[in-house]
């Protein structure tokens, strides 16, 4: 499975996930990061600014991360402990919104969806239609600059409602809530549509090898990748790396690839 990063705000939210996924701390100068076999975990701190800044820093620091799931507690006029999947995330202050592209219903049966509203201060204005949190909009704002919204999601567990208000939340109750959400988080991780993306590894590997051996400008590198993709599409394989060894500059490699592409047979 490609790399997924789970993001929580509080240590109490992070702990059950760290334990379940068998994660270990990664030394990092200013991020609280853990790594397991199937995912990373970032503990971003409370509030949307912390969430945005640390999500952006994490994406820069871990370029292999291709999906993000925010897991946390939220307030809503729903049953305590109910796990909800965000179908929309709104920043209350700016009214900016994000709509993650959700997996098929049958991949997450019995999980209701809800609009998550990120507030700057804790809110007790509970409704059935909204879940209040303090980080999701920051995470979506930063993540959507880098990732498609089919790969950025948010799972919330109802921690407070009109009958059990904010002041009743403890570290222990937050951990217990997140523990309840783990099956949903795991199903969501498996439902992410990585298999809908094109496979580019062969082209990336050859492009990397060629640009290490021969000098390429940034524009030439871009053009090389395009040509390698076209070659791969037309011949169902990338060019033989050994056959390319006789070419010692970007121009000759380009000329050779273009000549092969132009002469490729196209039949139906």
């Amino acid at each position, binding site marked *: 499975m490609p790399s997924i990063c789970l993001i929580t705000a509080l240590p109490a939210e992070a702990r059950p996930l760290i334990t379940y996924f068998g994660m270990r701390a990664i030394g990092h100068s200013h991020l609280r990061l853990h790594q397991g076999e199937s995912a990373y975990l970032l503990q971003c701190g409370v509030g949307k600014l912390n969430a945005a800044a640390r999500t952006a820093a994490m994406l820069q620091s871990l370029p292999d991360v291709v999906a993000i799931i925010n897991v946390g507690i939220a307030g809503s006029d729903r049953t305590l402990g109910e796990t909800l999947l965000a*179908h*929309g995330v709104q920043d209350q202050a700016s009214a900016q*919104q*994000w*709509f993650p*592209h*959700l*997996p*098929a*219903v049958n991949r997450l049966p019995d999980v209701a*969806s809800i*609009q998550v509203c990120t507030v700057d201060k804790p809110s007790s204005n509970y409704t059935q239609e909204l879940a209040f949190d303090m980080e999701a909009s920051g995470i979506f704002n930063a993540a*959507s*600059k880098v*990732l*498609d*919204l*089919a790969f*950025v999601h948010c799972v919330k567990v109802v921690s407070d409602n009109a009958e059990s208000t904010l002041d009743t939340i403890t570290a222990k109750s937050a951990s217990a809530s997140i523990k309840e959400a783990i099956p949903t988080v795991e199903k969501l991780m498996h439902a992410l*549509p990585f298999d*809908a*993306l*094109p*496979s*580019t590894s062969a*082209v990336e590997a050859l492009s990397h090898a060629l640009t290490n051996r021969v000098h390429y400008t940034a524009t030439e590198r871009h053009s090389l990748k*395009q040509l390698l*993709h*076209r*070659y*791969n*599409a*037309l011949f169902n394989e990338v060019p033989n790396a050994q056959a390319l060894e006789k070419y010692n500059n970007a121009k000759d490699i380009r000329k050779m690839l273009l000549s092969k*592409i*132009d002469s*490729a*047979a*196209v*039949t*139906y």
Partner: protein
Amino acid sequence: MDTIYIERDVLSLSRTQNILSRYPNARHVLVDRYTDVFNAPAQNFRVQKRNPALILAHKHGNRVIETPPGYHIGGENNYYFSHMLNCIYDCRYCFLQGMYRSANYVVFVNYDDFFEDIKRTTDLNSSPSWFFSGYDCDSLALEPMTRFIETCLDNFSMTPKANLEIRTKSTQIRNLLARPALDNCVIAYSLSPEEVVSAEEHKTPSLAKRISALKSLQDHGWHIGLRFDPLLKADNYQQLYSDLFEQVFKELNRSAIHSVSLGPFRLPKQFFKKMIRLYPESKLLAASTNMRDNMLSYDEQTESSLLNFCETRLQDYITPDQYFPCVSVS
């Protein structure tokens, strides 16, 4: 449909409720405007195509638009309209992949506003007008859910000065066969060689099924149109298109065919750039092409050979008054 986004303003409409009732297990998400979801940043057409959501919305203005010059089948006043954005099919050459970031389907449920605009536009012209449906979508593919064409035909039956072309690849023709044919309506099918259908027109009905639908429609009295569009180059194109024409025309009453047109493969440069990023493994997009006037196409010699060959072969089957070159909607 797993997820349905609904503009708050259209939630209570009976048409909206009818559509929603078809998908009892879908998630419902209320939005202010369809543009909040559709074509918003950070979306991937290819990924969404796997599991598209439905968006029910109101179309404000620009419902009836003049066609580009040259886009006609003999009429003087030509317009197109789209009650829907995006298509259930997945044709690798389709410009929608490059035009939109989102593969979700938008259905505009204020049908009556479309019909009012069509009537108003018709009344503005002294000579008959033509209205083309199926530019940003397939006209019939989601008809069982939308019932737009059914309502549309009721309206065109009362507006003889307005002519309608329904462009499709779909075989959802039950409703058309259950009503009398309209003299001011043409059902036009996009047709390609079966080998191209299999390789490039994913999720579409086979050529044989399209021909069978055309035959049923013709037998029922509907005017039919044939759109060989887009013409794709291949080393064996002469064989492919010869076989295609033979297969199509042997099944149909040639003299009763309303119109036949050819469309070369062309795409705006920006659309093509997006499409090649989405589908780097596509042979069709990887093959040699040319940029002319910010449009991607085959080189002039290839394009004219392909067109000339097809035009010449068509002369064996139809008369010049049935032929309209280059009505192109890839």
